[in-house]
């Protein structure tokens, strides 16, 4: 049976008259990976830091593991793990010493060596934090967030600023957490990341949810449907296509057709064949959260794109997953 571990009701956080979080509500079930996806300044950090008892809320109600964030701050802190945005640890302590330091802040803590193994930092165990690369630092941060064996782990932008390889390594660690049945709250700019890692996503902007649900449901609900792109179409092709689908778009030499149903694609190919014209290739794209976001807000989530995790080299040396292209 699904157990609710986080309940957020009509959460509002104001800075002066500006509402950084403007009335959001959601629930997270035990064992779920829930992502808050949104651009800079959307209110992601504000939302999670209220859940982490680091900021006070203006109005609404937030319960973590059944406890009110306004009242049982210390108890909640003992049962959650947090990787803050722009995480940093002690420069002159080693990886192991840092983990032990933060472990010492809790009443119970897991052995540092187990955590080091879990984030695959064995080689760097005795290296000063200062000397680690950004990706390794983030992994130390994830390890530290697990040090008190928390029920819920909050990861605020764990992959921002990392290169593609480091980013995938962090993903693998998060997938491992999920496999262990931990509840994870993730914030990210990267829709790829949200799609790959999360069970459910809340798309947030200006402190409000624009969409909330599984990535699949959101795309179904807000997406534009799949599209067929015929590149470098000559006029003959374009003419025949236009007769059949008056609403097509023409972008330079390319033609874009919305696929209404499964039967559309064979029909397009048939039409192209009959027209006797030339074209370079036919491509079918599925809408992504990115497209949904663009549609909902008219904004891009971010400038650069997270690389698709096509060839995933397992961080733990055993996971190998191929993700098919739709």
């Amino acid at each position, binding site marked *: 049976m699904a157990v609710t571990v986080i309940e957020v009701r009509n959460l509002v956080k104001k800075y002066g008259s500006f509402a950084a979080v403007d009335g959001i509500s959601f629930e997270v079930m035990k064992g779920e990976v829930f992502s808050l996806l949104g651009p800079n300044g959307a209110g992601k950090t504000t939302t999670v830091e209220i859940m*982490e008892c*680091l*900021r*006070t809320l203006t109005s609404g109600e937030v319960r973590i593991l059944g406890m009110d964030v306004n009242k049982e701050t*210390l108890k909640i*802190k*003992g049962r*959650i793990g*947090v990787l*803050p945005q*722009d*995480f*940093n*640890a*002690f*420069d*002159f*302590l080693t990886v192991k*010493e840092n983990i*032990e*330091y*933060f472990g*010492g*802040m*809790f*009443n119970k803590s897991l052995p540092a060596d187990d955590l080091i193994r879990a984030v695959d930092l064995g080689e760097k165990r005795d290296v*000063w934090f200062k000397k680690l690369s950004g990706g390794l630092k983030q992994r130390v941060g994830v390890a*530290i967030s697990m040090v*008190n064996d928390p029920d819920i782990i909050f990861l605020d932008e764990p992959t921002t600023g990392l290169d593609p390889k480091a980013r995938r390594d962090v993903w693998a660690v998060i997938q491992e957490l999920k496999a262990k049945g931990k509840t994870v709250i993730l914030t990210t700019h990267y829709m790829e990341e949200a799609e790959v890692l999360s069970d459910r996503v809340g798309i947030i902007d200006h402190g409000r949810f624009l969409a909330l649900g599984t990535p699949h449901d959101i795309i179904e609900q807000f997406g534009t449907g799949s599209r067929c792109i015929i590149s470098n179409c000559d006029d003959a092709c374009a003419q025949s296509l236009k007769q059949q689908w008056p609403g097509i778009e023409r972008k330079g030499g390319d033609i874009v057709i919305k696929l209404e149903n499964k039967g559309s694609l064979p029909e397009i190919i048939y039409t192209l064949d009959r027209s006797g014209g030339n074209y370079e290739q036919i491509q079918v794209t599925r809408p992504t959260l990115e497209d949904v976001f663009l549609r909902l807000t008219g904004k891009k989530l971010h400038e650069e794109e997270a690389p698709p995790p096509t060839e995933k080299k397992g961080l733990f040396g055993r996971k190998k997953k191929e993700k098919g292209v739709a």
Partner: protein
Amino acid sequence: MANRVLVAIKGEVKTFWRNKSTIFWTVAFPVLLILLFGAIFSGGGTGRVDIHVQDLSDTPASQAFIVSLVDTGSVNIINVSKGTDIDQYIKDNSPYAVLIIPANFSEAFPGPGQSPTQLQLRTDPTNSGSSIAYSIVAGVASQYNLYFAGGTNWITVGMSDITQTGFSYIDFFIPGVIALTSMTTTIFWMVSVMTRYRTNGIFKKLTTTPITRYEWLTAQILWQLVVVFMSVAVIMLVGILVFDMHLTLTPLAILVIIMSSALFSSMGMIIARFIHDEETASTAANAITFPMMFLSGIFFNLAFMPEWLQAIAKVLPLYYVGEALRNTMVYDNQVAAVNNALVVLVLAVVFFVAGVLLSKWKDE
């Protein structure tokens, strides 16, 4: 809670030993200060003024006068031969006091009607020794006048050193250096650690754990006590080995050092509370400590300073720390030491409470 404080201290201890600059400030800086000032001020060490004397009379009477000067115990006489061109001599040797005994000195005594003999004392007024030289020469001359007038000394002055048994400058200076170190170490540590942890996100991470800011501040202050006492040990060691100082680290002195460390740690906390940028905050700490360093009688005895400077010193916390330490460690004046220590205690409590109440981790 005790466990969290210990873990936090342990973290700072490790960081301390791995970070070279902190060791410099704790150990090398006070040692350099002592060696430097010790060398400057206890080099000659005799406490006498040098008077260069050109005796143009060169008679038993003039020689007797010179002996009288020597007998004061406060002068070194350097003889300048009769034929020397005194102006050239002054140029060459830059003395600060030159006494010229005129050729008619021996004939000066017979009865009234004759013009008085004039000793000529040429001094360099920029040198503090010159006025002492004048007092001594004038004093001896008065004695002679009194004697010739057939008078008797009705008032005499018995003088002995205030510090009783020959304390040196270094004995005066070392408690000051201890006071100074307890201030600079703690204030700069607090400012730098708090601004740095705030900027680099360590405070943010700490707030996600159950440690409270009271526990964290306690850990920092305890750790600073350790550092300060490390400095004190090094300072005392250098004082004993190099300068043969006469100090005792009394229980009261230890208490004063503890209170002073808490006082200045709190001052650092307050600075860091209001100035978030590390550079600016440390500039502010400098702006506070630098004048205090020079106006609190750490390097020089305030008794020689103008009144208004002494008045300023009396509102500076460091003055009371220095005085308390000096009174208990050097002069064995425990009553004065306790009085000074009470002032330090009150200041420490006030600053500590203010510091703890004002400090916060979250920047909401």
